[in-house]
Structures are given as C-alpha cells and as structure tokens.
C-alpha cells in the first residue's frame, strides 16, 4: 500500500514532541491468551446483539445493538489494532477523525430532523 519504511535523513528522535524515541517495536508482543479472550468477548457480544434483535425486535433490539456495537469496535481497536499499546498520539488522531465524522453526521440531521 505504501512504503513500509519511511526514508528521509536526520530523523532525530529527540526532536519529536510525540512518540517515544524513534524505536521500533517499543513493546513486547501481547500474550496470545489476551487475544483469545478478546475474540471470545467479541463472539459473545455478537450473540447478545443477535439475541436481543430476535427476542426483543424493535426499540430494545436496536438499542442493544447501538450500545454493544461500539463496544465491539472498541475491543478491536484497542487490542487487535493495538491502540491500547501505542502512544497517545494515535488515540487522539483516531478520536479526532471519528469526532469529525460524528459532527458531520449530526449537522446533516439538523436538516433532516427538522424538514
């Protein structure tokens, strides 16, 4: 997709306001058991959502999906995608991107909710 190794000369770690020193793999690999547990949680949460939509179709089912789905997303982001183990910059960037999307969607509804 794009260069997996950046080039460019004097990247002096000391200069950077963000990120730890320009090291690579600053952290040890995460234990396999942790990932398996996250996976089990994801499956279980999926079951909860499906069950809610089957047994309580309508408002409750949708409500459960609206609560559970972001939790599932957070599990994937934090553990599978490693955000939990990265420097804060990555989390801030991600949150900013999501906030912009949410903001834009919200503003669109200033039109559609009040037509």
């Amino acid at each position: 997709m794009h260069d997996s190794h950046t080039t460019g000369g004097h990247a002096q770690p000391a200069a950077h306001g963000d990120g730890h020193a320009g090291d690579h793999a600053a952290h040890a690999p995460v234990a396999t058991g942790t990932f398996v547990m996250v996976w089990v949680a994801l499956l279980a949460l999926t079951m909860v959502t499906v069950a809610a939509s089957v047994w309580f179709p309508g408002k409750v089912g949708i409500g459960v999906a609206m609560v559970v789905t972001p939790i599932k997303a957070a599990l994937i982001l934090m553990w599978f995608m490693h955000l939990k183990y990265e420097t804060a910059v990555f989390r801030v960037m991600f949150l900013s991107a999501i906030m912009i999307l949410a903001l834009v969607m919200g503003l669109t509804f200033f039109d559609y909710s009040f037509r």
Partner: protein
Amino acid sequence: MHAEGGTLGAAAVSPAAAAHHEHRDDIGSKTGMWLFLFTELLLFGGLFIIYAVYRHKYGTEFHEAAHELNKAMGVTNTFVLLTSSLTMVLAVGALQRARVAESLRWLGATFGLACCFLVIKFLEWSAKHHHGIWPGGEHLHAMPPGEGMFFNLYFMMTGLHGIHVLVGMGVMGSIAARIRSGHVSPSRYAALEFTGLYWHLVDLVWIFLLPLFYLTN
C-alpha cells in the same frame, strides 16, 4: 513495497547518521498507515451518512425490507470475520516471536476465512439476484422507493466492503510471499502488522454493517 528504500541519503549527512546503514522510522510508517485507515473510515462514513438519512426517512420500509435478508448468513459471516481477525493477530504475534512457519499458518487460516466470507456473501447475493433484487434489477425497480433504497444501500455497502475483503486477500498473498523470501521477517514485520491493521478495519466496518442491515427488523 520495497526493501531497500530506507537508505536515502542518511550516510551523506553526518557521521552519526552514517553509523546506521539503514534508516527506518516505523512509527512514521505506522502514522502513515493510520492516516490511510482514516481515509477508509471516512469513505465508508459517507455511505453511513446516506444510510442514516434514508433510514430516518424510510424507517418502516427499511424494517420491511430487512426481513428479506438472511439473518443466519449475516451472523455466520460475522463469526467468520471476527475469527479471521483473531488468526491475523496471532500471525503477527508469531512473527514477532520469530516463529515464521506458525505465522504463515495463521496467515493462511486468515486467508481461508476471508475466502469463506466471500463464498457466503456470494451465495447471499446470488439468492437475491435470483429474485431480481439487484441494482437495476426489475424486482428491485418495482419495489416501493424506501425498500429499493434499502437494497441499493445493502448492495453498495456490502459491495464496497467485499472489494476491501478481496484487496485484503491480495495483500495477504503478497505478504506471505515476502515472509517466505525473508523480506518480511521477525526483525522487520511492519508490513505484516499493517496488513493486520487493514484487515481489522475491514472487520470493524462489518461489525457495523451487521446491525444496520441484518438486525433492523
């Protein structure tokens, strides 16, 4: 994409830089990768906005139309993709721990699960196609506008997602080749890690597609 791109000019500049025979900035690369993921997120974001607007406008029709989707297949595919995300992190973990063969096995498993996902998707789509429910199809054309909108959104969103699955499989294939040839190795596994990030994003999008389409009735 390349193995030796990291040598640009560092040597010419200062003795300190010359000491490194190669210059790498993995955090920089990872920053770039995440920025790329944001663009993907916003690409789907546009579709999510359209979905939200039309669900607001055609709430009842969306509920009606969602009955026609096969819930079992949707849920099965969710399990398949979630499991493929697990095998993907295990592939990265194995390479980090220098277990190359194991890493390749997990990567193969991920690839297989992706195939499985696409087969189920194909069955689902062809069943719809069979009933004339297809963008431009005559049955879909004859539906009330709201239900037609639901299915057009369904095909566009799962279609775009499906293309991402296909691309992901292609990338996995090339990464596997590069692990075999040693270009991606326990000491430089960033490419595999980034493939994983991309794959999890594909998973992440699907997690939202499941309740939006299969669980709305």
